[in-house]
Each structure stands twice: as structure tokens, then as C-alpha cells.
């Protein structure tokens, strides 16, 4: 198909995959803490996690850009270590996308954790399992539905994200120009046909990805009613 920026497609898929993995790695422990280690002030943490949602993406992007800029501590540390500025790199996109999509993972996972029968964790511990083993073998699998929901939301949201990515990434072809920016540019340039084609491609990709997650191959849930 002509007019499709395949480089951007590849970049987006790579970004979404990496971000989704990081989201799970970062978000699941936060969700665990929110679900099982409630303190009276926990709602503050909950709220801070949810905040990126409330800001317009471009504005959030602006703040992230300033936070990554050469005058910020983060920016300076990065520059000293990596030898170049952080902004407008693929890594910057990853960081910004993680911040932006975190609530989409934390919320469903935390609520799934809260729904688990605590007796199962207790049974695990009396069987000698460390809290870590209980978490990995009991809590995580039983929250599977919530984790899947979070992963789907995080992946799709990263694919579609555009405001933050544009602000932090600077639209560098092959580095930070994702499909969503490419489609945006096409719409802005009033090249509707090309935009349609690219959008359709994204939809098909996403359908395929979701089919794998939700598809007919999906294992039966362990709480399926009898008979």
C-alpha cells in the first residue's frame, strides 16, 4: 500500500511492546502495594498515579520535556551517562509513554488483586511459600483477567498516543516518528486517503493483536461455572 510509512509502523509496534513490558513491570508492583498495603494516605499515591490522565497529553508532554531537558537533574544525569541529550530519543518516548499509560495498568490490576480471596494467599504461606512466591504463583495468575485488561489498555494506548510522543520525540523519522504521528501529519496535510490507509492498517494490526489476547484460543477461565 502506498503512502504508508512502514518505518513508523515498525517503530510504533516496537515502542508499544517495550512500553507495555515496562508498564507491567512497574505497574503491577504499584498495584500490589495499592491493593494489599493500604494506609490512610494510600489514596494520595493512587491519585498521583492517576494524574497523568487528567492533563492534556501535549501539556503533559511539555512537562516531561522540561523534566528531561538539559537543565533538569534527570536530563543532566542522562547526558552525563549517555553522552547525549535525552529528549528526542526513542528512550525519551519510552519514558514519557510509560508515565502516561501507567494508570491504565495500575487501576485494573489493583482492582483484580483486591478481588482475590485472601484465604488463597494464606494457604500459600502456610505451605511455606515466601510472599514473593505467593505473589508470582497465586496472586498474579488469579489476577490474570485484570492484568490482561491492563496490558491491552496499555499497549493500545501507547500505539495511539500522540500528544506526548510528539512533544517529547520531535517527530524524527525512524527514531521517534510513530504511526500515530504519521497519521496525524497526513490528516493535518489534508491527505485523507493516505491517513485512511494507515489508520486501516493500524486497526488490522490491533485486531490481530487483540485476537491473540482475547481470541478463540483463549483458555477457559478457572471460574467457569460447572457443567
Amino acid at each position, binding site marked *: 500500500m502506498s503512502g504508508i510509512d512502514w518505518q513508523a509502523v515498525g517503530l510504533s509496534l516496537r515502542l508499544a511492546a517495550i512500553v507495555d513490558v515496562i508498564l507491567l513491570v512497574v505497574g503491577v508492583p504499584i498495584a500490589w502495594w495499592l491493593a494489599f498495603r493500604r494506609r490512610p494516605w494510600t489514596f494520595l499515591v493512587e491519585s498521583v498515579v492517576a494524574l497523568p490522565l487528567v492533563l492534556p497529553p501535549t501539556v503533559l508532554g511539555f512537562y516531561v520535556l522540561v523534566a528531561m531537558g538539559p537543565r533538569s537533574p534527570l536530563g543532566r544525569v542522562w547526558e552525563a551517562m549517555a553522552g547525549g541529550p535525552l529528549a528526542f530519543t526513542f528512550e525519551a518516548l519510552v519514558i514519557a509513554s510509560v508515565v502516561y499509560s501507567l494508570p491504565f495498568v495500575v487501576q485494573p490490576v489493583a482492582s483484580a488483586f483486591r478481588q482475590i480471596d485472601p484465604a488463597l494467599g*494464606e494457604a500459600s*504461606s*502456610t*505451605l*511455606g*511459600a515466601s*510472599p514473593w512466591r505467593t505473589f508470582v504463583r497465586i496472586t498474579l495468575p488469579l489476577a490474570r483477567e485484570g492484568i490482561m485488561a491492563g496490558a491491552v489498555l496499555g499497549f493500545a494506548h501507547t500505539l495511539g498516543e500522540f500528544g506526548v510522543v510528539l512533544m517529547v520525540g520531535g517527530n524524527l523519522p525512524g527514531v521517534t516518528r510513530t504511526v500515530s504521528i504519521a497519521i496525524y501529519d497526513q490528516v493535518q496535510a489534508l491527505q485523507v486517503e493516505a491517513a485512511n490507509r494507515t489508520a486501516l492498517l493500524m486497526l488490522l494490526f490491533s485486531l490481530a493483536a487483540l485476537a491473540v489476547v482475547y481470541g478463540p484460543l483463549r483458555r477457559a477461565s*478457572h471460574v467457569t461455572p460447572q457443567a
Partner: protein
Amino acid sequence: MAGPLHASVRAQMSEVFTLDVSVDLPPGITILFGASGSGKSTLLRAIAGLARPDAGRIAIGDRVLFDTATGVDLPPQARRVGYVFQQLALFPHFTVRGNLEYGVAALPPAERTRRVEEVARRFHIDRLMERRPARLSGGERQRVALARALVTDPDLLLLDEPLSALDYATQSRIIEDLRAWNAAHGIPVLYVTHAHREVFALGERCVVLDHGRVLAVGTPHEVIDLPAHETIAQIAGFENLFTATVTARRPSNGVMQCRLGESLSELEVPLGMADVGGSVRLAIRAGDILLAVEEPRGLSARNVLRGTLTSLTREGPTVSARVDAGEPFIVHLTPGAVEALHLMVPMPVWLVLKTHSCRVVSL
């Protein structure tokens, strides 16, 4: 290794319920007995580390699990305590095999498989190894929970009504297995049950709880046959409970004489603490009373009461007879005896009670 369990715990569960218990259990099976809501499961949870007592000390041998004095509080996974939950708590996302292997994951695979298959065979769940718990029957689930706890080789075993959903034959097999297991392992086992059968078949020792406190400790016979408190009599199923007035004491014979309630019937019973003129409660098992259709003569039994047979009800292998002898008595007979004696309602009968069949219950 292992060693006896010491547990003294105090835990306020709600405004109306506080557990306040101190028990010492040598290796072997100890039955934990008590009415519904008396605190049995709560005690087990405290010992397993799932509920934190407000104060107390829990130790297995010289391994301290919990001590408010020194601030020790081992987490459940460090306590080496096997626990069969009353509500089972099987892992729904594992197969039966996965559930059984969970607690022995640290063993080498061959040894793990051997142990798991052995315990599965023993509890007759080997056919079910690849099923998820949602697709098991109630009794199958209970056997899986029991097997899951036993396979881990703990220092202490806590069993919360582990056979309640099983049929007689399966119970019998498992009771045999538990007896053998206990003989081989020699660890303390705290076994909650309501069934007399399990109490006597398994228990070397018995602890009775009531409203969160220890009411009695001893062998099953001491605790259940010789109730020191009316509650146990009720829990243990003494069908006949009477209030009586002490009319004479003969300490030299170890007996005293009592008048039953408002009736004129007198009974010789074992000597109790009550003084002449004082009140006592008497507990008598329906199965310990003999019934005669002619006035018995020349018997060693000291207590013979005249009464009227008012009803006969068959309850399985026994017939329950109600006799009005001033106070209403319940007497258990065999169907054969009913036949042989040509019992009919109503007819005059005599009740024969040995002195030591009458238990004096403290009020």
C-alpha cells in the same frame, strides 16, 4: 526435631468474642472440640500465623513462633505448620497435582513426584490429578486439601474438620491413614472435629473450647465421658441432664445420695463437691441405662427407678425409648432388645443405672 506445641494466646476478635487460651500439646493427635463459634478455627489461625494475637507465646519445642514479650513473630511460611482450612482454600488455577506439588516445590523432581503420587494414592485422588478443583465433588476437594497439607512434612499439623464431607467408608480409610501417619511422624496434630467417632478413633488427647476459653483438657474419655462442666455434657451428647439435691454423703464409699428434681426418686452417684442440701447436675448417657420389664432382683446395680414407657422411636441401629420416672429419661436400646422384651407403649418399666454411669457435672 519438632517437639511439643505450646500456645498461649489472647486475641480480641470482636466486642463480643475474645480468644484466651493456653494449651500444651505433646506429639500425637489432640482433638479440639467445642460448639460452633467457640474459637477453634481462630486458635488454629493464630498458631499458623494468619491472625496476630494481642498477646501470648507460641512455640514448637524450643522454636519460638510468636512471643509478645520478645517481639518474635514468624511469618506463616517460616512456621512449618501444615493447615487444612475449614473452607479448604484450594488453588483454583492449579490442577490437583499442582495443588499437591505446591508445598514441596523445593524437593528434587523425582522425590517430589514420588511423594505427591504416594499421598494421592493414599487419599484416592490419583484418578483426579489433572482436574481443576472447580470440577471436583465436595469430598474430593476435602481429600485434596488434606493431601496438600500432609505432603509437606510439617512440624505441626492443624486440621479443621478435615473429614466432614466424607462418607463413612472413606472416613474410615483416612482415619486409618492418619493414625499410621501420626505414628510415623510423631509431631503434634491439632484436629478440630464435631464427630464423636473421630474423637475416639483418633484422639489421644482432647481440648475442649467454650466461648474462647479452654474448658477441659484430658483423654477423650476423661474429657467427654467425665464432664467437669455442663457444656461438655451437652457438646458430648449426654442425653439425660437433671438437677438433683444431695441428700446424704458417704465419703468412705466415694458416693453420695441425691434426689432427682421434684420427684421422689433417689440415686446413688459418685461423690462430688456439693454439700448435703446443695444442688448438682447429673449427666447420664442414654446408652448407659438398662431397661427391664420386670422389677429386677439381686442385681449389683444400686439404682433402680420405676417408670412408664411413653414412646419408642427407632433411630438407625438403636431404638430411643422415653421413660417417665418422675423426670423424663431417654434410654437407648437395640432393636433386638425391643423385640425380646415385647416392649409396648405405654407399659411399666424399670431403669437400671450403675453408680458410675451417673456423672456429676459442676454447675
